[in-house]
């Protein structure tokens, strides 16, 4: 046997994962783009202090500053009521990114929970999957509209107009988009559950909850990751649809989705559409690449190759 002193201590899993993640070029680019976007929306407003919401009360000045092209004072131009697009992009990004990530988190959380319960505990399978089918058969957009219409007022009264709207939108989107995740996870759990290492864990005496967290969840991670990255894009778009239909944030409050919609209706200035569209695309693309890299990094068979 080898001398015990030369043996390295058990390595941390996360160091290995990070080493592999760094080797994935797309994932690193995605990570930098996402960090740049986050800095842009979080730190940006500290340096770029133009007014994003209020319209200039001096009507003559407002009219003169409408729909301007790029200039030094307005690097991305101004919108149809003369507000600086860059400032609006920063404020809107904060909301859009938050809605995207949190709503996706809710959807993934609920979907994974229901999928794992249905897949692992046979007694719950039928009931939970019929519930999933029921949600899938609902027309989601009208449901969301009704949901926001009914409970939006209560939430706004409770948390203030913007935070209340944020909560109701995130909850609404999250609770209407978990079904596909639940189905994917259930299918994977059914497959993984029959593998011998789960039987081995049971023969050791590992209780079900730790079999799920230690053996099953890590092995169903890949499809969840893919669903999550696509879910972010969906949530951002759904939020813009809601805002467009007048049930989301108030019309003067910018989000990437609503900026895109207003620009779309103001087609003589297509450049106004580019910036929010680009921001949404970059977010989705970067998250997608990060998810791809993370999935590879978490799989020991790919790691170290």
């Amino acid at each position, binding site marked *: *046997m080898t001398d015990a002193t030369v043996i*390295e201590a058990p390595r941390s899993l996360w160091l290995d994962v990070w080493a592999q993640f760094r080797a994935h070029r797309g994932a690193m680019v995605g990570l930098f783009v996402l960090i740049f976007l986050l800095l842009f929306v979080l730190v940006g407003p500290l340096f770029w202090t133009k007014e994003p919401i209020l319209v200039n009360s001096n009507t003559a000045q407002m009219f003169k500053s409408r729909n301007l092209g790029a200039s030094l004072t307005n690097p991305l131009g101004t919108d149809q009521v003369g507000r600086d697009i860059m400032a609006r992009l920063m404020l809107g990004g904060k909301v859009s990114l938050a809605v995207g990530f949190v709503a996706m988190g809710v959807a993934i959380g609920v979907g994974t929970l229901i999928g794992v319960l249905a897949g692992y505990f046979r007694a719950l399978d039928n009931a939970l999957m019929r519930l999933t089918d029921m949600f899938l058969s609902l027309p989601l957009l009208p449901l969301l509209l009704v949901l926001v219409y009914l409970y939006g007022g209560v939430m706004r009264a409770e948390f203030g107009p913007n935070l209340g709207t944020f909560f109701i939108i995130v909850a609404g989107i999250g609770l209407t988009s978990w079904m596909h995740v639940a189905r994917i996870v259930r299918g994977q759990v059914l497959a993984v559950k029959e593998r011998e290492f789960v039987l*081995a*864990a049971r023969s050791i*005496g590992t209780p079900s909850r730790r079999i799920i967290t230690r053996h099953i969840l890590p092995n169903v991670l890949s499809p969840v990751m893919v669903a999550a990255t696509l879910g972010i894009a969906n949530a951002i778009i759904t939020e813009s649809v809601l805002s467009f239909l007048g049930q989301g944030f108030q019309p003067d409050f910018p989000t990437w989705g609503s900026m895109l919609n207003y620009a779309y209706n103001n087609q003589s200035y297509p450049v106004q559409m580019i910036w929010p569209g680009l921001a949404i695309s970059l977010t989705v693309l970067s998250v997608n690449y990060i998810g791809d890299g993370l999935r590879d990094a*978490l799989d020991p068979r790919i790691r170290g190759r």
Partner: protein
Amino acid sequence: MRDLTADAPQPLVRVEGLKMYFPIRTGLLRQHTGDVKAVDDVSFTIPAGETLGLVGESGCGKSTVGRAILRLYEPTAGRVEIEGEDVLALPPNRLRKKRPTMQMVFQDPQASLNPRMTVASIIAEPLEEHTDWPRARKTERVYELLDAVGLNRRFANRYPHEFSGGQRQRIGIARALALNPKFIVCDEPIAALDVSIQAQVVNLLEDLQEKLGLTYLFISHDLSMVRHLATRVAVMYLGRIAELSNSAALYANPLHPYTQALLSAVNEPDPELAARRNRIILTGDVPSPANPPAGCTFCTRCPKVFDRCRIERPDLVEVEPGRQVACHLYTEKTNQAGSTGGFGALSHRQQTNQQGVSR
């Protein structure tokens, strides 16, 4: 090989009337319309420190017996006493406390190790579950176990896919040993390995038995390995034990017609002997365990079948000291066919070897 005729010590494992039926549900309302009788009334004992070989063809219920004993399935009926405690009647928390005494080595070492865990965390899992040792002590125990199964301590940080089949099986054995078990069910531990590796793993199991005083239930379809390893052998057919005997006597003189057929299929390395031996080729297929024959389960394929076999199910009875057979040939006083035993009794069936050469 040990002296087999000596008085057996108090058995560590006692299985009585074990039945494992898997229900068949059909129709819209999932009505219970029948059972797959995977294991039907199996009884045996294993004395401490000994190895019971459990052999039989695919689908005869060998693995199900092993899993039911460890209560990985909930058996339909029966008692399984390990150290005098009925495992099948234990409530979940007591069962969990009992798990360290009984462990299992699995057939497919690729499938029985979680691909996302390092070797160290795989072997440490039983320690995580049943001890509250500090991390350093767990690590030390993992290294000890790696030494015990002949793996380099440097491998602790690697993942299962980086190992060969034999090494993976050693990891599985180390995991089973982690909590100092007394009884290990080896569920075809060598079936998925290369022949060259099989011997290594079997020798490791033997060494560990000697060192740690382990008791094995060795499930296999490899008769020559069982002969090498087991002190006693149980031959299963369609969920029931056909013959239970000490291993030397069983291989020298198989009593049950099924055992005779099974042994005649073992490869003979000596070409001279191989050409001379009589292969008993059984015709037909194994009946469905959902609908076994009314009498002896082997009556549909048995070369020596007679009327009574189709009506009455034979019990497992002791016909010689230390030898139990479930066959009417040996319970019927007038029938003397059994006394000849061996291959000779069947010589009329198959005069030629596989190449068709008669010697």
